[in-house]
């Protein structure tokens, strides 16, 4: 959807419940989410990256609907018009030592293809 980020949302006036925690994992409040929308973060993807809500242990399974409701209200649109942030693997937190056992080269064989593209991406 084409969006002009200069769209006038009016002033961000204080609202009841602004100090209420919406994302429990990362302790993000309703007021912080509303302010982020007024700072230009119009998508769930940006809200998540800017505030970390939905980036904790539950990966947004608890709060994403609440967050999209707050964002939609500030933007004056329906929550259904907001594309959800991406769901990402793994679906449950997984220990590094366990995941490290997957997709290994057969015993004794070298890894099938040489890596080397793992230089710092920054």
């Amino acid at each position, binding site marked *: 959807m084409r969006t002009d980020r200069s769209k006038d949302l009016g002033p961000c006036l204080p609202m009841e419940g602004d100090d209420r925690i919406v994302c429990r994992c990362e302790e993000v409040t309703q007021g912080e989410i509303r302010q982020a929308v007024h700072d230009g973060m119009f998508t769930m993807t940006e809200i998540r990256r800017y505030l970390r809500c939905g980036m904790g242990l539950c990966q947004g399974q608890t709060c994403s609907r609440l967050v999209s409701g707050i964002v939609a209200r500030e933007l004056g649109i329906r929550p259904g018009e907001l594309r959800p942030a991406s769901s990402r693997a793994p679906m449950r937190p997984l220990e590094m030592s366990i995941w490290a056992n997957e997709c290994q080269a057969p015993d004794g064989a070298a890894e099938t293809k040489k890596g080397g593209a793992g230089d710092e*991406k920054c």
Partner: protein
Amino acid sequence: MRSADVVICGAGVIGCAAAYYLAKKGKSVIVIDADEAIGNGGSSRNGGGVRQSGRDVRELPLAMYGIRSLWPTLSEELGTDVEYVQKGNLRLGKTEKHRQILQGLTDRSTACGLDVKMIDKDQVRQINPYLSDEVICASWCPTDGHANPLKTTLGYFRAARKLGAVFLTGEKVLRLRKEKGALRYVETDADTYLCETAIVACGYESRQILDSVGIDVPLTKDLIEALVTEMEPEMFPQMLGTADADFYGHQTRHGSFVFGGSAGYDRENRDFGHLAVYGNTAPAICRATLRWIPRLKDAKIVRTWAGYEDICADGVPVISKIDEVPGLIAACGFTGHGFGISPAVGTCLAELACGEKTSVDLSALRYDRFRSCV
């Protein structure tokens, strides 16, 4: 038809930074991005390193300028905490061959005036006691560090927007158009924009846009991946890499560890446009990481992601005015290391667009440097 002094194609960290520095100079700016979200390409998918060590000497001056003059005050400048931490970069080695690779990198960097040196096993342990006992050496650059790429990109966006820059998302730039030999119009799938100057900073997609005025930059793209752990107790603040480039990463201010690596199929992995992670990459990153930091074996991964990097044929970006098309500036081909230099690049792009002398000499990064090898 809307008009602006400068139209920027691409709202990644480069486009957002350029927009901010241009708006600060009083220029009117329109930024256009095909994606619905700001900075949804490599800008939000990289490892967050702000490093000079290990860089090609052609882009090293940009990295050194940014770390000296821009990164230390960026949070205050933007009014957004970009979580910049300047606690050094260790590039680790376990074998004599690794030592030779690291020594070569170190020698080339010191020749450019960078404070980086080789250190032995005991010195590595003093700096970071959590690494594998097999580490025998490292290159150490104390002025390197890391920052939060998500907050940096969105921080530049927020600050530029506050200064009046217009951002249009979900709108695809189709072509550039000249008038009387100079760049004058940017055409999208929704509108046409009149401008004095256009900056093309769309990653790999820059190639097609530049092609519309007959300019070709030799770019390809790789699909690479990274992952992040849950919050862990504070362990070490350095950025880590290795001589073999099998993994890299750091612990963020938040406590989670971000690691990247490769199973070796970055060019062959296919995603059909969905930016999907590949099943073999996360396990490869976990294996590589645990070889260097064994005590993270119980750290839980909460998220993995993939992103395209635009690979330039010779490994460093094109940041350049285009002689044949006055008014056109290209900034693309960052080859997976654009984030750390983004404040310096944004500064230089704003200077180029205003016809000023750039803070860093960009002559090694011109668009017409590609010659036959025979």
